[in-house]
């Protein structure tokens, strides 16, 4: 395919079309009926149709194009011994400084191909889903224009051939996530969540930008040819230390975007946005950008093993940390959010132990079942009339069967039950962790897998099993535009693992070999086949245990129809103080508040009250006062008589002439 640039360009066009129409229409509306937006008043059908067609159409077309581009390439590279050379297409020169130029150029190699495949696929499905889900919203057009804009940014990010261009996409997705989290701008918590996400990302981006500069300083270029240089270890300047610093900075950026370490705080709040947004941005695509970045720069990271180890540890830590929080959440979307964080932790763990392929593999599979789960939860919320508290659900299995089945499949997938997608990817990660000899990390991952299985099945049980609570009995199934994507995603979460079946199970670790040309693959120790099989069985066992445990605690129990059910408290009763701490999310937000925010606020207050108000303003006022005094003095000379002015003027002029004359 010749025009890669068309792939991001199409959603951009969609954004412009939708945005313009939405603006014009809403302003016309505002004129017609005084007052801008009318909550609950759905748009006229024609306009909805337009937005739907443009929104879905542009992204769908982009998806078709990208598959037209990547399928031949993928096949070609599968059969080529060394993999095909990346396709790089320059669109135009963006910046030129001296002899160094930054081009707007797009790159298609196996890594971006992999990303492209699921980004466009999931993106399209979620657009379709949104058509049904957002039907009643009066911000329909706005929503779709933002969503298209996001797709544009994400595709730019994926296809970019240079860090600066990637950064454009990076910021673009950040902006869209902000806009879409704050989609319900009349709700304070949504606005606050949007700001939180934006600021947390700023912290990361600060590292990101410095990292880009660092890369430029190291290699004298910022486009991805530096990866080759890094592979050949062609470095400028103080290499080891520099590389280490650059890696840490880039990783900081990745943490911001992918909610790792302390920067995870924004992701759970981001659930304030519409559910499809959570599915698309905060589960499937955007949050994986960090992993993508690490994989992109893997060649660089390999040069700084300590940095890699740090990545691994932070990943593992985040994984188990988030998982524990997930155990106690009652908001269905919050559970999924924390699960996302912890899964992302898995991916970083994989990258950290040097198995970048495994990490990307998990990104790939995770996008499907997590998107499916989110969309499913969306369908549940839809059915429950915007009720998100699982304590008020229950017994929905029979009422919304399709949602139930698809979510069950996805749950099993994420829990890592054989032979669903999650099993293979997660096992590849654990396997490589073990193989690389980080046994502690392995154990952490294993335990987290158990927790994952537990909280996921807890979610399913509380939602679908037992007796209906709250309004659960008048729940009804969602329209086809929502269920069809669910089924498709469910199907993918079953089969997606097929691309990564390890050799030991008679598969050909396709994805690993596929990614070889574009990501580094440092040597990881080999394991005896027996041990490998054993570990697989072990993780499978852990997963099953988790499921069973959740079933025991939550599955059978039925509760009164009144809202808060015993099961809600079950977790505390059974785990005591630790559980309570976990339920309070380890008081992380409070900690950040106490350690970071409040000191800053104090400093700010001081600078405002003390420095600005007294000192700066003091100077200004003093000077003003002086001028006033001077004015009082001078005003006696302004008689208001033109002739006096003329006379004075002439006197001055005469003096001037006299001076010239004399000199």
């Amino acid at each position, binding site marked *: 395919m010749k025009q890669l640039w068309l792939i991001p360009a199409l959603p951009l066009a969609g954004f412009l079309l939708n945005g313009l129409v939405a603006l014009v229409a809403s302003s016309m509306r505002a004129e017609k009926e005084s007052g801008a937006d009318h909550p609950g008043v759905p748009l006229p059908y024609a306009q909805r149709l337009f937005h739907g067609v443009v929104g879905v159409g542009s992204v769908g077309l982009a998806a078709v194009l990208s598959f037209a581009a990547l399928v031949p390439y993928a096949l070609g590279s599968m059969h080529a011994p060394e993999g095909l050379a990346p396709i790089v297409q320059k669109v135009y020169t963006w910046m030129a400084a001296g002899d160094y130029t930054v081009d707007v150029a797009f790159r298609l190699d196996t890594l971006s191909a992999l990303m492209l495949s699921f980004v466009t696929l999931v993106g399209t499905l979620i657009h379709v889903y949104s058509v049904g889900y957002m039907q009643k919203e009066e911000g329909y057009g706005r929503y779709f224009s933002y969503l298209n804009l996001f797709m544009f940014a994400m595709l730019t990010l994926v296809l970019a051939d240079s860090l600066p261009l990637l950064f454009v996409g990076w910021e673009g997705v950040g902006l869209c996530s902000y806009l879409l989290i704050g989609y319900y701008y009349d709700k304070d918590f949504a606005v606050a969540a949007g700001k939180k996400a934006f600021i947390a990302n700023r912290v990361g981006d600060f590292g990101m930008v410095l990292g880009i500069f660092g890369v430029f300083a190291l290699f004298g270029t910022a486009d991805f040819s530096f990866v080759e240089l890094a592979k050949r270890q062609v470095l400028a300047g103080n290499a080891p230390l520099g590389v280490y610093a650059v890696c840490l900075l880039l990783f900081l950026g990745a943490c911001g975007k992918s909610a790792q370490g302390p920067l995870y705080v924004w992701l759970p709040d981001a659930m304030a946005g519409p559910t499809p947004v959570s599915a698309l941005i905060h589960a499937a695509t955007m949050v994986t950008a960090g992993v993508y970045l690490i994989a992109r720069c893997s060649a660089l990271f390999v040069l700084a093993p300590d940095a890699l180890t740090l990545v691994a540890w932070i990943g593992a830590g985040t994984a188990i940390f988030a998982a524990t929080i997930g155990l106690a959440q009652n908001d269905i979307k919050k559970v999924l959010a924390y699960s996302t964080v912890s899964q992302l932790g898995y991916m970083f763990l994989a990258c950290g132990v040097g198995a970048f392929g495994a990490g990307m593999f998990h990104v790939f599979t995770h996008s499907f079942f997590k998107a499916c789960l989110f969309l499913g939860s969306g369908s549940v919320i839809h059915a429950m009339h915007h009720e998100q508290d699982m304590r008020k659900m229950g017994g929905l299995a029979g009422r919304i069967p399709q949602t139930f089945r698809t979510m069950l499949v996805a749950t099993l997938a994420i829990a890592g039950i054989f032979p669903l997608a999650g099993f293979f990817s997660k096992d590849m990660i654990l396997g490589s962790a073990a193989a690389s000899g980080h046994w502690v990390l392995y154990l952490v991952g294993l335990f987290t897998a158990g927790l994952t299985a537990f909280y996921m099945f807890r979610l399913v049980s509380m939602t679908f099993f037992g007796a209906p609570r709250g309004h659960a009995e008048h729940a009804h199934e969602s329209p086809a535009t929502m269920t069809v994507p669910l089924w498709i995603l469910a199907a993918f979460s079953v089969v997606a693992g097929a691309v990564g079946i390890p050799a030991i199970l008679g598969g050909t670790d396709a994805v690993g070999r596929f990614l070889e040309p574009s990501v580094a693959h440092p040597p990881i120790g080999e394991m005896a086949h027996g041990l490998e099989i054993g570990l697989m069985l072990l993780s499978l066992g852990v997963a099953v245990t988790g499921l069973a445990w959740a079933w025991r605690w939550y599955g059978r129990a039925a509760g009164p129809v009144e809202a808060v059910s015993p099961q809600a408290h079950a977790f505390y009763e059974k785990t005591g103080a630790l559980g309570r701490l976990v339920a309070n999310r380890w008081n992380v937000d409070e900690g950040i508040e106490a350690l970071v925010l409040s000191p800053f606020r104090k400093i700010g207050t001081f600078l405002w009250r003390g420095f600005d108000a007294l000192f700066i303003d003091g100077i200004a006022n003093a000077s003003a006062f002086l001028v006033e005094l001077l004015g009082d003095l001078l005003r006696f000379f302004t008689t*208001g*008589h*033109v*002739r006096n002015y003329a*006379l004075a003027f002439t006197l001055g002029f005469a003096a001037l002439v006299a001076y010239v004359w004399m000199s």
Partner: protein
Amino acid sequence: MTGALPGVAPMAVPPGAFLVVATLLFAIGLAGALLKRNALSIFLSIELMLNAVNLLFLTYARMRGDLAGQMIVFFVIAVAAAEAAVGLAIFVALFRTHRTVDVDKIALLKW
């Protein structure tokens, strides 16, 4: 003194004479501008000063055998036209509000 320029007849009158006349005119105009109280008369005096300067320009143009001076005079005249139009309009407006154009009676700029 430039002497006989090619294409320009020699000046029979010493250019200094022109200069003196011009400066005297300027002085007279200035005196008028400073002494008269009727705004229109002041305006007239200013016109006179302008013309005095024009005469200077013409003289120098003649002395240097250079058209630039005449060009400038042309522009001065045009600008004077614009100035007169606006100035007189202002006086009319002024008269409408104050029933006089005596600049001593109109001292709005006083503090």
